[in-house]
């Protein structure tokens, strides 16, 4: 359903003198994501994860190569399929307009597709009490606000969902709850998802396959079941770095 073909991206940065230096961020990225598949993109900060996600969300253009969704470029596909692409960011506080109430935040997205879905049932889906609808974002805890963002993201029945470090800045118990929630939604809605993370444990919980992004290149792609048999140096290092709890 989604294809990334030989994508290159670099940012120009002025260094000493006047000559602009270009910093390559992504180099020859190619991968497909099949319909209904949940694929994880794992890498350190600075590996190009967020740039790749911005390209897939149609927020930026690649220098060369392209991102095709159902055969169309990402930006075009989004224009033609309103609300079918959705995203949840890591930083939930800046993900919602601070002067909107929770119900306005969700309502804005609901109106987009004229869905018959009701706000109440959405709140129920993400396990939030209805009393929160009249609150402002700053009156909510981090976990609650991230749930609001998830509710908003699924309100349009998206076919493609990007979770950009959606659980990384939450406390572990809250992370576990959100992961459970996402697991439930995965079964219920059957959307395709790109799950960006740096922690392999959360990835294993949700995703069918894992891609390792290191220094702008995809070094390996494995099915989650075979995670223990990774071949590349970087993936092995990442696997060994997991702080086990028993």
């Amino acid at each position, binding site marked *: 359903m989604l294809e990334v073909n030989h994508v290159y991206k670099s940012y120009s940065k002025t260094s000493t003198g006047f000559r602009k230096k270009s910093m390559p961020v992504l180099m020859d990225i190619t991968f497909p994501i099949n319909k209904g598949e949940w694929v994880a993109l794992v890498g*350190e*900060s*600075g590996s190009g994860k967020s740039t790749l996600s911005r390209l897939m969300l149609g927020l930026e253009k690649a220098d060369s190569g392209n991102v095709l969704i159902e055969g169309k470029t990402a930006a075009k596909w989004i224009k033609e399929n309103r609300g079918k692409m959705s995203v949840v960011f890591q930083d939930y506080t800046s993900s919602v307009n601070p002067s909107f109430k929770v119900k306005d935040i969700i309502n804005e997205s609901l109106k987009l597709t004229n869905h018959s879905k009701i706000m109440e049932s959405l709140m129920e889906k993400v396990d939030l009490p209805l009393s929160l609808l009249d609150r402002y974002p700053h009156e909510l*805890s*981090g976990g609650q606000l991230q749930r609001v963002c998830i509710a908003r993201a699924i309100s349009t029945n998206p076919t493609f969902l990007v979770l950009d470090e959606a659980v990384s800045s939450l*406390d*572990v*118990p*809250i*992370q*576990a*709850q959100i*992961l*459970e929630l996402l697991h439930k939604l995965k079964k219920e809605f059957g959307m395709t998802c790109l799950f960006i993370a*740096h*922690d*392999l*444990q*959360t*990835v*294993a*919980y949700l995703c069918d396959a894992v891609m390792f992004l290191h220094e702008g290149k995809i070094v390996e792609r494995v099915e*989650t*079941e075979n*995670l*223990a*048999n990774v071949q590349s140096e970087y993936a092995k*290092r*990442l696997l*060994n*770095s*997991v*702080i*086990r*709890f*028993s």
Partner: protein
Amino acid sequence: MALLEVKNLSIYDTQTENSIIEKISFTVERNSSFGIVGESGSGKSMMVKGILGLMAPWMNVSGSVYFTGIDISEMKTKALRQVRANNISLIMQDAMSAFDPLDTIGKQMIETFSENLQVSKKEAKQLATSVLQRVGIKEAIHVLKKYPHQLSGGMLQRCMIAIAVALKPDMIIADEPTTALDAITQSDIIKMFQKLQTELGTTFIFISHDLAMIQQLTQEVMVMKNGKQVESGKTSDVLRRPQHTYTQYLVNTRLTMTKSFEKVLRKDTDHA
């Protein structure tokens, strides 16, 4: 005699009329490592500030804090600052904001050392290089010349730990030292802490919401919820056989989160 003894510490916010923490008591023995676990908003970081006397004036702190047997909660601000400078180091979550963005790391380290340890600039520089190497930075001289924004979060966190180590305090308090970092860096930093514990014999207090880190690094632990102490004891006991429902909840959620990962790995070992 215990290095740090906190008795019935309570903090009350007179502005919002909220109780931040209530009647917390614990002791930290010399050369041991103590963990404080709780979710964000449980009052962990506030408690540390309360112990160190770094509270805003409208916060009402009651109870007593004995450090090396001396009640520091009764101390004057100036004397307390002396204790903080010489005996206790604090490592914070956000390393970036702990450094002055306008100066190089080296300059800031040298300044700190020559001020607090009464050494010459040259000795300070040598010390800086050696402690940076100690926390696993190979190109120490190179790093000293960098400005904070030129270094990664993990690097800065190491620099901060290096400063704490160099000052040779009796106690190092690390408040969520790995939360803002990537998985690989997190595990590197934890390994480094383990090494430092055996080498230095300094007392550590680790504050975290991550049970795995607490399990790796501490011998004693206290679990906090909404400003109250719900359980404490030996780390292995508390995490293996949690008594309080809240601790059980923390352990269980942690296990659910990792169960798929563990399953995948276990399957592999079965094959082998």
